[in-house]
């Protein structure tokens, strides 16, 4: 097969982006086709490329870009099963997001630039996936970073968006600096920047500093994929438009770090320490983010923390040495998380708020957005990992990998020696993953219950309130809260009539994404299909872990539901006891508070990581800046002003001499002449 087709895949969205940038201001009506067509086309091309490549084959093509002093940099393409899988996912999600965005940002005056940036972002992601050269990969990597910066800051009128975009940029760059050094070290050790060359060097054991390289690269991966301790940008990045969250922060950019480690896994396998670090990182990320997600009120932040946690799963799979599982989970997660975000977007679009507690007071919401309700449910189930949804299978693959690694027989699938994976890493990942399954189920249930309380909440309230007064009380509650929620004030009676207001372009991408979210996991069952595309290892869930995982998930769901029932009933009773119409406050019906107890407060604020960072980095930096400012203003400027003042004083003295009186000048002149004459005479 020729290389033109894969080359076109990143080129098309890039050209589309350039065209949109060029014409967006003058001809905004071309923006939509220019945004959708290239992305969809390149998605189709990616699919075609993947089909042409088939299974088990790889393609390497390279053009040397320019001779350099050190290792050459070449325009290289590397195609294999992983790239096929990830590009298809990217193409699918990007197409859905572009289509969805046309409706979501219909009235946005900056839509052209938004669409162009999304296209450019897509192109960069394709480049990262296809690239066979580390430097070219870095180019795509950084382009993604800057596009992410712009897209998070799309609503730059708000302070949140500005600070979030800056934070995302700075934190990811913080990771990128060691990442760059890691790449250089890798290239220097291997003598080439070609990935194939690097992998060959790793296989031959020619890498002199594998641990150092792995740790440096991990920093970049942690930044990009939002792993602890560089995860804090991702929840804040939810200030961007929801489709962007779906695209960037669920399916693609954050996956880039995982994808890179998967590509360079042989290098990591050379260093057990790096794998343990990765495992610890993944474990902390998983548990911490799950706890945080349980305490969030903003639906998008819940999803963001869940993303962080799922990325922790992938990192854990990599720490266990099984990149197959990691990429499997990456793809399935990409699908269901994009679905979740887009559904949440519809929900937000309809409710005009991000707040879960506010949604919980809109019982009509479920009727108004049935598509979103269903797809959100599908996505949540996939997230929890109940069979037979995709999340179950991919998560079981991770569990299996961790279990094997814990037993010392890691499923490296021939990428490296199984002994390269320390057992500790396996154990850490296994235990953390188990705990996280429980927590994930809990917060997913909480999300669902809070977003769609539906008739159950009314029924619960009605159990304690006399029947006749139930509807009346509910209506009164609505009217009572209606002051700060104008949409809610339209009351239950009007809600069904506006059913069709969500545009079709926002609804049907949900269903498109729902299909892989439900069915993709089955692909892992066929040994000669998906595994063949990857490394060829088994992706079947083992019985023990499957039972364990499902059990934990069900337990989480049940615990969460029980907590919810308890608190809702208690709140209703309290309302009756006070004799007033029940004010259904946020805290009262939130099962998360009951479940977390004292941890609720810290978890709501991300365990104070941001505050810690502020103490550790921001304050010293500000202090140093103040010091520098002081030095500049008072010390350096002092010299400048002193020289200026000195010159002025000198000038004042000199201008005193310029009286305009010719005789004075002449006197000085002649006196000088006499002096010179005397000196010359005496000197000779």
């Amino acid at each position: 097969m020729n290389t033109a087709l894969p080359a076109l895949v990143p080129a098309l969205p890039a050209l589309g982006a350039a065209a949109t940038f060029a014409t967006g201001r003058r001809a905004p009506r071309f923006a939509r086709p220019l945004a959708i067509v290239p992305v969809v086309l390149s998605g189709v091309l990616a699919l075609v490329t993947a089909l042409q490549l088939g299974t088990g084959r790889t393609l390497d093509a390279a053009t040397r870009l320019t001779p350099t002093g050190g290792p050459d940099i070449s325009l290289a393409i590397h195609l294999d099963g992983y790239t096929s899988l990830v590009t298809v996912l990217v193409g699918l999600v990007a197409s859905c997001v572009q289509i969805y965005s046309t409706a979501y940002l219909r009235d946005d005056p900056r839509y052209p630039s938004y669409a162009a940036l999304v296209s450019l972002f897509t192109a960069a992601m394709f480049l990262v996936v296809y690239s066979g050269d580390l430097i070219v990969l870095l180019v795509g990597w950084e382009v993604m970073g800057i596009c992410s910066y712009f897209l998070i800051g799309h609503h730059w009128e708000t302070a949140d968006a500005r600070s979030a975009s800056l934070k995302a940029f700075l934190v990811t760059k913080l990771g990128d600096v060691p990442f760059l050094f890691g790449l250089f070290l890798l290239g220097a050790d291997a003598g080439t920047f070609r990935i194939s060359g690097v992998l060959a060097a790793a296989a031959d054991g020619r890498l002199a500093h594998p641990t150092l390289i792995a740790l440096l690269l991990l920093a970049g991966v942690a930044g990009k994929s939002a792993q602890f301790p560089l995860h804090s940008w991702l929840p804040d990045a939810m200030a961007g438009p929801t489709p962007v969250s779906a695209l960037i922060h669920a399916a693609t950019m954050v996956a880039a770090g995982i994808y890179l480690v998967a590509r360079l896994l042989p290098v990591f396998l050379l260093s057990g320490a790096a794998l343990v670090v990765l495992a610890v990182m993944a474990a902390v990320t998983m548990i911490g983010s799950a706890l945080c997600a349980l305490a969030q009120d903003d639906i998008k932040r819940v999803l963001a923390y869940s993303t962080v946690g799922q990325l922790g799963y992938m990192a854990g799979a990599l720490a266990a040495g099984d990149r197959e599982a990691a990429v499997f989970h990456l793809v399935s997660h990409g699908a269901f998380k994009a679905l979740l975000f887009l559904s949440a977007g519809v929900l937000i679009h309809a409710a005009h708020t991000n707040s879960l507690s506010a949604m919980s007071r809109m019982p009509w919401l479920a009727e108004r957005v049935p598509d979103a309700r269903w797809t959100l449910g599908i996505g949540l189930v996939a997230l929890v990992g109940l069979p037979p949804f995709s999340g179950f299978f991919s998560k079981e693959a991770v569990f299996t990998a961790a279990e094997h690694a814990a037993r010392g027989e890691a499923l490296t699938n021939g990428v490296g020696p199984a002994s390269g994976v320390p057992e500790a890493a396996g154990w850490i990942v296994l235990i953390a993953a188990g705990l996280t399954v429980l927590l994930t189920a809990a917060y997913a249930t909480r999300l669902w219950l809070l977003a769609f309380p539906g008739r159950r909440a009314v029924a619960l309230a009605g159990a304690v309130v006399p029947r006749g007064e139930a509807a009346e009380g509910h209506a009164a509650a609505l009217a009572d809260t209606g002051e700060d929620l104008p949409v809610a004030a339209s009351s239950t009676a009007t809600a069904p009539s506006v059913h069709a207001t969500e545009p079709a372009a926002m609804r049907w991408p949900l269903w498109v994404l729902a299909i892989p979210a439900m069915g993709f996991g089955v692909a892992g069952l066929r040994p000669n299909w998906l595994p063949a595309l990857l490394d060829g290892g088994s992706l079947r869930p083992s019985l023990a872990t499957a039972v364990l995982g499902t059990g934990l998930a069900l337990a989480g769901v049940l615990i969460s539901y029980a907590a919810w029932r308890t608190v809702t009933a208690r709140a209703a009773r309290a309302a009756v006891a006070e004799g007033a119409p029940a004010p259904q406050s946020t805290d009262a019906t939130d099962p998360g508070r009951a479940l977390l107890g004292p941890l609720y407060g810290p978890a709501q604020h991300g365990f104070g990581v941001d505050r810690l960072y502020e103490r550790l980095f921001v304050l010293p930096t500000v202090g140093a800046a103040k010091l520098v400012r002081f030095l500049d203003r008072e010390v350096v400027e002092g010299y400048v002003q002193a020289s200026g003042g000195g010159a002025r004083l000198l000038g004042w003295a000199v201008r005193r001499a310029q009286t305009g009186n010719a005789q004075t000048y002449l006197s000085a002149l002649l006196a000088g002449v006499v002096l010179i004459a005397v000196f010359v005479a005496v000197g000779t």
Partner: protein
Amino acid sequence: MSILAAAGSLAPATRGFLSPTGVEIVFVLVGLAVLGAAVISVGTKQLVHAALWLVVALGGLAIEFLLLTAEFVAWVQVLIYLGSVVVLVLFGLMLTKAPIGRSPDADSGNRWVALLVALAAAGTLVTLVVDAFRTSWIDLGSGGGSASVTGASLFRTWVLPFEALSVLLLAALVGAIVLSRSRQAAVPKPRPGKLRAGKPVGAARAAKSPSSERES
């Protein structure tokens, strides 16, 4: 060097300063008069007197020229300086309303500095000159500066500078005429839309002043 050798007077002279010749005595006396007149001329507070003392000084210098056998130069000195330059100076003083009697502000505030500089210059120059020419002797032959000799050298050797000088004089003549011409006709009409201060300050006075100033 050949000229110096021709002078032949660089050798130590036998003549002493204590046995002056008659010419030397006259020269020194007239020189004292010239110097005194010059000092009064630059020192007096009566402006016109200064010009008249200048006449004395310049006339004395003409005599010194005669004593140095430069006859033609002496008469030119009388003709040009006494006959023209001083007359012009007096003319200028009178046109600038020089008062009769002492002018308290004849000297500027710079006078002490000026005195210092002048004394320093005098000291330096006299020291230098005395040191250099203590023993030099001038052989005053007759006829060295007669009109025929001077004229011959002027029109044979120095004719080109002489002609150049005539151009200079013409230029000076034209310049003086242009400078002293009445400016009244030269005032441009005020352009529309542009404010002007009115007539130049000197215009009214220029009309009164005599238009008879001419270069001799």
